[in-house]
């Protein structure tokens, strides 16, 4: 078992979500930074899609009730293990860590990035809803956010033995790549130029549903109402106010605001690591 000593601001159980159910209104959900969850699982020898914990900012503390192998990925920042004797060890991220019974794993405030992922060898074995143990913050499907005293069972989602000593950090890229459309014609070339030419600020009102971007605002080249149409994670939906909302994994499956562009799949994980107040540039690719 893993016992939650402190959840920090928000700690959620997430796997790779519920893809393929948008036609009945169910969002993909799952880890916001899928690459980091997959890496954490690989480091402990798990199936890449095993359920782990997505921790927002710092403050998560987990106690091992039995010896466990865990790994922490995602954001960068201090990781410590506090033993029963109160001895504190600084531990690396992106590396398998051995916890003895009663050891407490603590995540400090990230120095870069926002979301950390904790994988435990065997995976977290909670009941699945529609094939996934992920919590969807908008539809409330899946296990509730972690609270003090929660005890999480560890499963057997292992593929092999942990064999990677330490994975390299990914270098940060300067801008997110955006493919125009499907409704870039609502904003014209001037709108796309403004999208690429603006230094956007990540709003504190951002979450797994959407990352709100302050700046601009973007002006529409036409008026009218868009019939509600399917949405995808990564879509830059532009409400009438002109400030784009970059949809996250728990975002709506349909929406009525035009999407000027969609962040390319390979850059989506980085959206999870954008911090409130951080400045962001978008590059148009064709």
């Amino acid at each position, binding site marked *: 078992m893993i016992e939650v000593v402190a959840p920090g601001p928000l700690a959620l159980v997430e796997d790779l979500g519920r893809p393929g159910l948008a036609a009945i209104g169910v969002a993909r959900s799952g880890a916001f930074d899928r690459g980091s969850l997959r890496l954490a699982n690989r480091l402990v020898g798990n199936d890449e899609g095993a359920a782990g914990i997505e921790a927002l900012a710092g403050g998560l503390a987990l106690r091992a009730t039995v010896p466990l192998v865990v790994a922490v990925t995602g954001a960068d920042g201090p990781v410590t293990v506090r033993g029963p004797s109160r001895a504190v060890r600084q531990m690396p991220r992106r590396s398998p860590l051995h916890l003895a019974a009663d050891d407490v794993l603590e995540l400090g405030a990230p120095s870069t990035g926002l979301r950390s992922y904790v994988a435990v060898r065997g995976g977290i074995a909670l009941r699945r809803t529609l094939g996934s143990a992920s919590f969807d913050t908008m539809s409330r499907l899946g296990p509730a956010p972690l609270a003090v005293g929660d005890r999480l069972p560890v499963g057997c989602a292992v593929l092999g033995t942990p064999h990677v000593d330490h994975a390299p950090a990914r270098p940060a890229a300067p801008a997110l790549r955006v493919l125009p459309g499907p409704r870039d014609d609502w904003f014209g070339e001037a709108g796309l130029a403004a999208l690429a030419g603006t230094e956007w600020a990540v709003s504190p009102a951002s979450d797994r549903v959407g990352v709100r971007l302050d700046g601009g605002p973007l002006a529409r080249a036409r008026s009218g109402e868009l019939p509600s149409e399917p949405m995808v994670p990564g879509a830059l939906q532009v409400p009438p106010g002109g400030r784009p909302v970059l949809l996250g994994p728990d975002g709506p*499956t349909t929406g009525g605001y035009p999407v000027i562009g969609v962040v390319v799949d390979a850059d989506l994980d980085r959206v999870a690591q954008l911090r409130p107040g951080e400045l962001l540039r978008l590059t148009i690719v064709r």
Partner: protein
Amino acid sequence: MSLPFGVRRCGDRGLLVDADDAAGIAAAVEALALAGVVEVVPGAAAVLVRHDASADPRALATVLAGVEPLARSTESGVLVEVPVVYDGADLDDVAAATGLTAADVVRLHSAAEYDVAFCGFAPGFAYLRGLDARLAVPRLAAPRTRVPAGSVAVADTWSAVYPRESPGGWRLLGRTDAAVWDSARTPPALLAPGTRVRFVEVRP
């Protein structure tokens, strides 16, 4: 990249097809079972076709541009009868706004046959097309913070049943005890795209 008229990029893993009959196009694309296509999602007037990295978006777009909608499933689709107690909080307001009596509103709402055009807003929330044009009313100016599960409602040209308690701005005509959403059931949504629906008046 230039694509055929009516087909648009939706990121590097999706195409959006404009369509008057989005549900019909979605059903037709599903039936083709195209290689590389991982999901087909209808909206009100467009269909999202999500694909994996193996698909060539340009070639896929050419195929999608030529797809003809499958005929609306007037006889083939599953018909679901939804029992409704017509005692909704907005029934009298809808009657006043449309110049009808409350009894006429109930009669027109329960006389039509609907089908699920698409889902959105919440898991299992189905947009039902087929509403009598005389019942078209705008959404509430200020949405309710709490609409009970099972509320049967109308807005614009649509009708719907709230699958679970949620906020909402549609006009409430009545309520049903049909389990519109159950995430432990297979399938979880009672009203999936293509399903035909009739509302049947019942006494409380």
